[in-house]
């Protein structure tokens, strides 16, 4: 990075970083800094909402003169654990970014205090481990995307006024009629004409009876292009249970009774008189699906799932 400009102060670091490219050999295409955004992390919003917020971050960052790398698939908390650190500070984020061919790492988190959502955004220059952070808040889940954009601008600087022009990309498939998704957004059935900003995208085509195809689509400024995706037919398979079928009934028929935790709890409770245990496990949604039950009573250890055939 340009040492003279960095010396201007950490407060201006991020924006300075983005506007002062190093020689192209050390950076991304066109000498632009490579930014690695992590997936937005939160314990407060749904997985769908998190995905939408991550897309929002990607969309925002793509408006800057940077090369935006694909976020790692793992949750940032997992990455933190892998990096053997305990909080998302500059040191930890730098460790996470090591070896990922990035110049900058962007981290965003949504928390909650009382009724308000709190947003934290951190941008770390991996070479120097300098970090710029911003915080924002909003009182509604609907306002999260906007609030996140404001926090991003606080570390990235104002959005460049000269918006890059959308580029025309034709997406076709053989056979036609496949659903076309760009970064999870449904764009229509192939063939379809997309107008997209320069950047890197995930392009997915799905069609019943054919193997789904996902590939990377890199769009460069002012370079229109065509993509033709051949689809491979897959052999017909028996249909699954219709979605409308009552799942609980299906489960109770196919799941051996001895593998259900609440069954063993009842048995154990009666055998050993541990009524408390059974009370807990039975008191709510006793046959709720997607559950795992635990007991700290050693008399129930013989009922542990590891002892049973899988």
């Amino acid at each position: 990075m340009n040492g003279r400009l960095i010396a201007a102060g950490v407060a201006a670091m991020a924006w300075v970083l983005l506007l002062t490219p190093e020689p192209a050999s050390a950076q991304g295409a066109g000498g632009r800094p490579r930014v690695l955004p992590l997936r937005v992390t939160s314990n407060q919003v749904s997985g769908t909402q998190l995905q939408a917020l991550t897309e929002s971050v990607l969309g925002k960052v793509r408006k800057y003169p940077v090369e935006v790398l694909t976020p790692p698939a793992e949750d940032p908390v997992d990455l933190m654990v892998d990096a053997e650190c305990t909080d998302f500070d500059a040191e930890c984020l730098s460790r996470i970014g090591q070896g990922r061919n990035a110049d900058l790492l962007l981290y965003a988190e949504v928390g909650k205090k009382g009724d308000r959502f709190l947003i934290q955004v951190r941008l770390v220059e991996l070479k120097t481990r300098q970090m710029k952070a911003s915080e924002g808040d909003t009182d509604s889940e609907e306002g999260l995307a906007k609030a996140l954009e404001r926090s991003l601008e606080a570390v990235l600087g104002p959005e460049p006024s000269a918006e890059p022009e959308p580029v025309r990309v034709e997406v076709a498939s053989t056979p036609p009629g496949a659903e076309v998704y760009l970064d999870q957004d449904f764009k229509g059935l192939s063939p379809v004409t997309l107008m997209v900003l320069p950047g890197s995208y995930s392009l997915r085509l799905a069609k019943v009876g054919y193997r789904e195809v996902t590939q990377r689509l890199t769009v460069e400024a002012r370079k229109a292009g065509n993509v033709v995706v051949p689809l491979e037919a897959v052999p017909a398979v028996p249909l699954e249970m219709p979605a409308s079928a009552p799942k609980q009934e299906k489960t109770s028929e196919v799941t051996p009774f001895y593998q259900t935790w609440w069954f063993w709890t009842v048995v154990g409770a009666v055998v050993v008189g541990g009524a408390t245990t059974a009370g807990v496990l039975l008191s709510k949604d006793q046959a709720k699906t997607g559950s795992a039950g635990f007991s700290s009573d050693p008399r129930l250890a013989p009922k542990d799932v590891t002892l049973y055939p899988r």
Partner: protein
Amino acid sequence: MRRGLHRSWTFSAMVAMIAGCVDGANPLEFDGPSPGAAGRLTVALNQAPLPALAFEARLYRKLPADPQARPYYQSPCSPLGTGFSINHVEERKGYVLVLDAYSSGDCSASTRVARGLRGDIEVLAEGTGKAIYFVQLNGIGQVTEMPLPPASLLDSGVSCTADVDCQGLEDCLDESRTDCFQEACLPTEECQGGLKWVRFRVHPAARCIEGTCRLETLYPLNGRWPRAFHVAAATPDGSVRVFGGFQVATGATLNTSPRALSETFDSGRFLFDEQDLGATLGQASAAMATATTSNGRLVTFGGTSVLGNVNRGNVAVPDFRSETCVGAACAVTTSNEAYAVDLATGTITRSVLEFQGAGGVAIGIPGPGALVRPGVLAGEGNRQGVGRGAWRCLLAEDDTISCLEFPGSENAVARLSSTIACLDGTRKACNDVVVLGGNVRTAPVGELYRVAENRFVNLTSVGSVPETLDGAVAVEAGGQIWTFGGRTSDAIDAPPYAFNVDPGQGTLTAQAAGLPEPDLAALRRVGHQATPLGDGKRVLISGGVGPDGKIRDDAVLVEANAGTLGVVARIPMAPRAFHQAVVIEGGLFDRAVLISGGLKALQGTDRFAGGAALYLP
């Protein structure tokens, strides 16, 4: 399935009983971290033995190396009721659940009274099934035994000719039985709705042993194989590797097993794994001299495949005979093999030694390597006797071991059942090695090996050093060497001693601990373990054989400070002698002690103490 149960009056009565018992104690419901996810964890707490008021639960998607790392979900500090549920958990494998219980309502760290952990948890997609997981709550300051099969499954009384007779299913004639469940019928069967009521004949993991269905182990919740005089060592990642040892009691002797199976306790999952060492580990894998080196290798020297009882002072314990014997009269087959076990990877490298022996002691020295003081040694003419002298053994880059006699140690006396300690440095790279006691009388009780100078010194006893100290265990605590247990005569009578060595003068002094008689009595034992807890002061003395010849069912926690010793606590545990007690290094059970194997009786066929236990300091 549920329809069937509700139909039965037994189930109705059961629910009524349960409801009555938990009246007013509703379990807690927590909103989990992933609002859109269908997974749900339900935890029932059995807090009866714990003085706990509150708890915290943490759920990790993978266990961090740093205990302070942020979990996937952390519950609020909550009153300890009957249990709780965490809703909205992502469906995936490999979760680790950590439960901490506290004696205060605010879950302050200083009031933590128990910790439980369970890994390998799979939260399944909706509609694909459910399971129960056992999570052991380990009380702080207590020894918590890992679960063993109940007597009703250890010996079911059900006759069999093959495993399938025990593990298979049979029709339930009375579907109201609590162990009956519904299973899909075979295509060739005619049954209503495609389902039939069945039950396991005994247990899906039970085996047919000598004509009777038995569930001998709850592996992987506990160790599978019986062991005594075995080896255990902590790995760098919070696990403990356990291998070797006697596994069979035949008549008056203990024998090793032809199968060399190693087990590893993973404190990050609280489960055991086993590895088949095949022919790698020789059959003489019991009573090996072991040490840990500075480069993370566990090294073993010699060993035996058989050992009988020796009667001393009317107490018969498994031991080597101190008389010189020839050929078959020796009744012990010793080994000339050494093994280096990479504790991180489990890789074992075998070497052949210049000497052949068993029952010795060893300690890590710079090199990396180990100083080995054999117990019994095989000599010329098929003779076997008590060993004198020591070997300096070094590890090569390929983990092979080569040994040379330590210069001057040919002047040492013959010692059996001695103990080894470090005067300067650590037990992984000791510079001044002290060997104390053994079955010697009116001879130098101590000897010193100055490793850097390649110099051996027979220490001159000064003052009240006991003339004999046989079967004691030496550790470093409170800035000096302490020995615990042992004999000063034919009786199991030795008090703890604080030893001081003056390397320059070549002298040894000892001071018996000034403890009240009840504390001294509690510390009289042989075949025990003395495990320093890593704080430089506290030592856990566990199990062993008491003066009355009975295997002790307690541990004593002592604290050494500047020449004084205090008993901090006496802690009940299952009877174990000739076991192992190893401090776990790292993870959420850092400095806890895994107590594994051992004998629970000195006679008969049912001699082995099952499984393992955990002491949480």
